[in-house]
């Protein structure tokens, strides 16, 4: 149990996919203009990551090494398609916003990476813990980042039509925050901040271990 917990926490802190491993960046930068979209993106990633990790872990003994990548990717693609169809059916407005990024979850390096690096070599429970941890680690960052961008880029953060937080009306929201240059620059600063604050904590834990 303790081991599972460790695996889970690791995905959020020491091996955070976005901040430390630096994978799965594309969608993060693209969909983080909208807090709401980022939340659903995160949920989609958690779902796909956990499910594919679980399935691959269950069948890992039956997967021949030579064709493991095509097999992994078909499994992942299937779950992505399920997410795609379900979102289209139930939250069409979010689906319209996320657009091509839902199909592109397939090639989000995190998912194939975890399948290959973790699920293929570990038990089901650990793989699920890993998937959840990594997924939540991803979601936490993307949601936080989207929150910042939407807040400072448009002056208010909305979720399903409701305004969560708003800045005073005199705040002249710089649109560049929502544009692509803003995404890159802010993510760079975000990364620096994260390294300065969060990673240091992780390092200290590493020493205590």
């Amino acid at each position, binding site marked *: 149990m303790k081991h599972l917990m460790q695996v889970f926490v690791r995905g959020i802190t020491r091996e955070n996919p976005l901040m430390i491993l630096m994978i799965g960046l594309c969608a993060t930068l693209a969909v983080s203009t909208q807090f709401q979209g980022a939340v659903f993106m995160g949920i989609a990633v958690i779902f796909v990551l956990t499910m594919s990790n679980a399935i691959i872990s269950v069948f890992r003994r039956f997967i021949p090494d030579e064709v493991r990548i095509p097999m992994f990717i*078909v*499994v992942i693609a*299937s779950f992505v398609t399920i997410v795609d*169809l*379900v979102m289209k059916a139930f939250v069409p407005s979010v689906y319209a916003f996320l657009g091509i990024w839902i199909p592109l979850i397939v090639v989000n390096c995190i998912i194939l990476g975890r399948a290959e690096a973790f699920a293929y070599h570990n038990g089901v429970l650990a793989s699920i813990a890993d998937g959840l941890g990594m997924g939540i680690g991803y979601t936490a960052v993307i949601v936080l980042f989207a929150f910042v961008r939407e807040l400072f880029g448009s002056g208010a953060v909305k979720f399903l039509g409701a305004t969560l937080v708003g800045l005073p009306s005199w705040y002249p929201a710089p*649109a560049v925050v*929502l544009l692509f240059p803003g995404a890159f620059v802010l993510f760079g600063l975000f990364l620096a901040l994260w390294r300065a604050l969060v990673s240091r904590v992780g390092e200290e834990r590493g020493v205590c271990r």
Partner: protein
Amino acid sequence: MASSPLRLVASVVTTCVVAAGGLAVTYSVTAPRIAAQERAAEQRAMAKVLPDAARFEPVAPVLLDAAKKAAAAGQIEGLWRGYAASGDDAGWCIRVSARGYGGPVRMVIGLDRNGKVQGLTILSMNETPGLGTRVESEQWFLKQFTELPAGFGDRDVRALDAISGATRSSRAVKNCVAAAGAAFLAIRGR
């Protein structure tokens, strides 16, 4: 440690078959729901742009073709006749799309019997948030179209203001409205 080719093929094919089957089932479950969602969105939009009408009927394919041909500025995707609860002719609903900055801007435009813009709404667009999306968030912009005269033409639409900093998105909306106007002129009276 190389596995036998047969085993490789078999495992991949099995995965594919299972995945395909599962997805087919998922699709058949969600497909009606997706269609319904789309229809509902369309209905909602039509009710919004043509509040007088109670029900909408698609027009005959001949008319749709004529409208498509007439509308040079944008692409007519659908054409409905609106009827009031009393059964009276309430006007037209036109689903139209035009190219914007990040892809097509799809709109539904409601015209009354005389061809005056009753209302218009954006179904979907992929414009830059904060810039292009201002065509929707700045309300004066869409509102100005309802002041166009009945039977308006291309020139009338062009004369309206655009949103500075969002030229392309503004132009897409204008193109949609101009296309709707042209379609109306082509099918009026038929």
